[in-house]
């Protein structure tokens, strides 16, 4: 693949699937500044890996693998925000500072719950909420389909318990 082709594919990928990058970054990093760095790193890794993309695999699977791998590794490497790329500026990626919804209490609880999950469980939960099939989740994470089902079941149970606590508290 020559450079103009590579550039065109890169732009297409970002245009069509930017949501994956933002959603993963948002789930792993509530802080907007960290998220900007994280999305920049994801973009850079996509650009670096684009030549190795094999179109027999689903594009979204490939993108989820990169963005989740970057997000989990980023968490391990960085305790505080730090700028890594000299030429990239904060204005390069435009991410909202506040993301509020109507259903605030439940939504805050869901976000809080996802925020408290361990790295791999968080990836599982994001993919489940994005309505990915168990087979695709298994492919992205490198787990068996049955293991995906078991793990998701356990995480959902914890979440439901949390919501039922909230409900009982609001009735008191």
């Amino acid at each position: 693949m020559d450079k103009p082709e590579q550039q065109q594919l890169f732009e297409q990928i970002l245009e069509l699937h930017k949501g994956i990058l933002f959603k993963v970054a948002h789930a792993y990093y509530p802080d907007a500044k960290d998220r900007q760095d994280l999305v920049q790193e994801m973009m850079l890794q996509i650009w670096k890996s684009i030549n190795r993309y094999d179109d027999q695999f689903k594009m979204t699977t490939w993108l989820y693998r990169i963005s989740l791998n970057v997000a989990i590794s980023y968490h391990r490497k960085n305790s505080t925000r730090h700028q890594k790329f000299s030429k990239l500026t904060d204005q390069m990626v435009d991410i909202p500072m506040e993301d509020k919804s109507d259903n605030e209490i439940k939504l805050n609880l869901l976000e809080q719950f996802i925020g408290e999950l361990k790295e791999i469980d968080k990836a599982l939960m994001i993919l489940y909420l994005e309505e990915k099939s168990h087979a695709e989740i298994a492919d992205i994470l490198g787990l068996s389909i049955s293991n995906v089902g078991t793990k998701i079941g356990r995480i959902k149970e914890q979440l439901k318990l949390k919501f039922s606590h909230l409900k009982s508290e609001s009735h008191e």
Partner: protein
Amino acid sequence: MNDLELIKLWQVSQVSLEDNMKFNRQSIEEITHLKVHGILGSMKPFKKFALLIGFLWVSIGVSLLSPIYLNSYSEANKFFLFSASIQVGLTALALLVYLYQRITIYQVDLTEPILRTQKKLARLQATTLWTARILVLQLPFWTTFWWNDTLLNQWGMWQWAITLVVTLASIGLALWLFFHLTYENRNKQWFQLIFSSKEWEPLMKSIALLEQLEAYPKQETRA
């Protein structure tokens, strides 16, 4: 709350997020022209500084010790010569292990499945322990490099006793740390105390991630 409600709730939150998502076209073009930093560029300044000091230490050590071996070995103080050589050698070995680890981490393919990639990365990161284990072996040689024949012949019993106690204690401590600074001891209080500073955070996080990954049954993990 059932599954459907849960997914709907998530989607509602993502809609507002998506509405605000924007990539600046110019930025996308910029990234494709961006010169990606190499292995050194990807390291934090503190680590680069530590690496530089390490290289300087080894270079100075080699340039000072080599002429002694080549030109004045017979007259040289062997305590100093061997102690300093071992210290420099161990530092060089630790630097090589650390550099090899950084380069391997840098080359890991992030398009592979998450569990496989993260296991590889966390294991590599956890090998930082080897750098620490190699470096603690230097400890006894800091207690012997200043010995010399004249001093040893003039020492009295008490001086001998104190010197031997210090050296033997440092040998014991170095060996104990070398054999005990392992992943298996990660939950011990002394281990966590040694690695409690911010510089060791990636190591401790890698260990925590490895523990998390171990919770996924091995036989069910896809190749």
